């Protein structure tokens, strides 16, 4: 990104805010990149010949007579098979010490796929985590967020999902990762010998916050290359979308935009949808599945970020610490994969829907029993048994450290039913009970 001969250099900046500068210039396009005093910047607003640039590195030290040159293109990524196994920053430059990637230069942030060119998602994505595979099965081409408190081990869960999922390529988009988290991902992928199918775009907390805005588009640009050109199933992991939205608000609030709810920009819904709607199943076999992390502040799902996210995505996964067993579980009451009915009992064993529903119903009975207990009421024999069941169920199925196949999860479910309940209490279809009820 160097300057060319006979290039116009502007030297008259009319306004400087913390994240943006404005100047008068002509022949400039929206989203175009520019250099301001050597710092990379991007056009975020055009009004006549008045142009507003967001400066990725912040505007500290930029003088009013700084040299501004326009590069003539929006951010691009060189796509080729050589992306696999590499780590990049938000601009697509290698940060792993390796060489620059040669390949076709593609503008990032293009349009999402036309609905008529899509296929109904129908392929199951197994993660080995029963709270996901059993209760909230994921489907290729789905978009789903993890809603989690910032202190939950969501990066570990994401790394596990990445390694276990049977996807051809995994693209990690890390926004505002701490350096520790970044090294954690790098080390986990390295140790698993899975680096050759993983591409990472990372903007750590060392980078200016505004660079996070480029990360999802970079990751999805790479994903589209593998899904469209190579017909591969691609899993895109985005963490943490809350920090992405925070960066959006930094830029928009420093301009003259009136903030919306929770000081987020009014365009938050569109900004998020632009990312999530890239999830797609192609008829030719390629697919892009998006799993994002949205951290909640104080578990508040009515905040603008999770609220808007929930309207776009196809369900959500909730992480919660179960104090009875001291483990983090996927909360069965608040989690939902809206596409699960496309595969369960169909691509999985016939008893899947019934075991899933029965187990959650019994878990709900245990929650009622717990309320009774906490309020000093007498517990019936059934209450006691459902409480014991709930502990076993949390430990053996809902906990995120579970890693088994779906058939084994179903067998575990039946064993727990048999251990704690009578047949009529479980109330599953008779022919399935006769076939699967444990012998002893």
């Amino acid at each position, binding site marked *: 990104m160097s300057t060319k001969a006979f290039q116009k250099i502007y030297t008259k900046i009319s306004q400087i805010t913390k994240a943006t500068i404005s100047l008068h210039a002509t022949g400039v396009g929206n989203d175009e990149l520019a250099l301001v005093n050597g710092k990379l910047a991007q056009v975020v607003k055009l009004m006549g010949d008045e142009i507003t640039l967001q400066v990725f590195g912040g505007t500290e030290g930029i003088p009013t007579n700084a040299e501004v040159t326009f590069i003539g293109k929006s951010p691009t990524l060189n796509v080729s098979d050589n992306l696999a196994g590499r780590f990049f920053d938000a601009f697509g430059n290698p940060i792993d010490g390796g060489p620059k990637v040669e390949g076709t230069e593609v503008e990032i942030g293009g349009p999402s796929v036309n609905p008529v060119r899509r296929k109904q998602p129908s392929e199951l994505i197994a993660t080995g985590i029963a709270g996901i595979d059993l209760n909230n099965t994921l489907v290729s081409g789905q978009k789903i967020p993890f809603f989690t408190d910032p202190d939950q081990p969501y990066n570990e869960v994401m790394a596990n999902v990445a390694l276990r999922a049977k996807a051809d390529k995994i693209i990690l988009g890390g926004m505002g990762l701490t350096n520790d988290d970044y090294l954690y991902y790098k080390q986990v992928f390295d140790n698993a010998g899975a680096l050759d199918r993983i591409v990472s775009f990372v903007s750590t907390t060392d980078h200016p916050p505004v660079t996070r805005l480029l990360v999802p588009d970079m990751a999805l640009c790479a994903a589209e290359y593998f899904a469209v050109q190579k017909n591969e199933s691609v899993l895109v992991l985005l963490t943490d979308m809350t920090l992405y939205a925070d960066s959006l608000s930094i830029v928009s609030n420093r301009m003259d935009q009136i903030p919306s709810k929770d000081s987020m920009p009014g365009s938050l819904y569109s900004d998020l949808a632009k990312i999530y709607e890239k999830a797609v199943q192609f008829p030719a076999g390629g697919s892009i599945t998006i799993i994002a992390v949205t951290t909640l502040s104080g578990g508040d799902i009515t905040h603008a970020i999770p609220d808007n996210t929930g309207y776009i995505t196809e369900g959500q996964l909730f992480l919660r610490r179960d104090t009875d067993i001291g483990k983090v579980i996927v909360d069965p009451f608040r989690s939902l994969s809206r596409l699960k*009915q496309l595969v369960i009992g169909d691509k999985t064993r016939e008893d899947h829907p019934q075991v899933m529903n029965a187990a959650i119903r019994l878990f709900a009975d245990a929650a009622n029993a717990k309320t009774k207990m906490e309020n000093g009421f007498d517990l*019936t024999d*059934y209450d006691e048994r459902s409480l014991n069941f709930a502990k076993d169920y949390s430990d053996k199925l809902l906990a995120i450290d579970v890693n088994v196949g779906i058939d084994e999860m179903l067998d575990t479910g039946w064993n727990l039913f048999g251990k704690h309940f*009578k*047949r009529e209490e479980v109330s599953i279809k*008779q022919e399935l009970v006769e076939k699967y009820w444990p012998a002893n």
Partner: protein
Amino acid sequence: MGWRFLSKLIFWGILQQDAFDKVDCASPIERQEYMLNIVIDICDKEYNFSGFAEVGPYFKKVINVLKQMNYALFKSDDFFKEEKELEKLLAESQVAVEA
């Protein structure tokens, strides 16, 4: 009589539907009427229990049979088999006065 158990009976026997089940996902009006009549009859009956602790488990059984009926094709052999089962179950705890 324990209204709590009857409300559970109405919930699990009538209102609750299994959208993942081929049969139970759609219930024609004739079937709904048939099941509702059965449930209303159960609610109207007098029961003879020796203690409160018996009531919960008993209605768990009744609910289970109703669910099995809901899973069976309407008026199929399985359906009538479960209905017989239900009548047997109801006869067990009935006050003798019932005709």
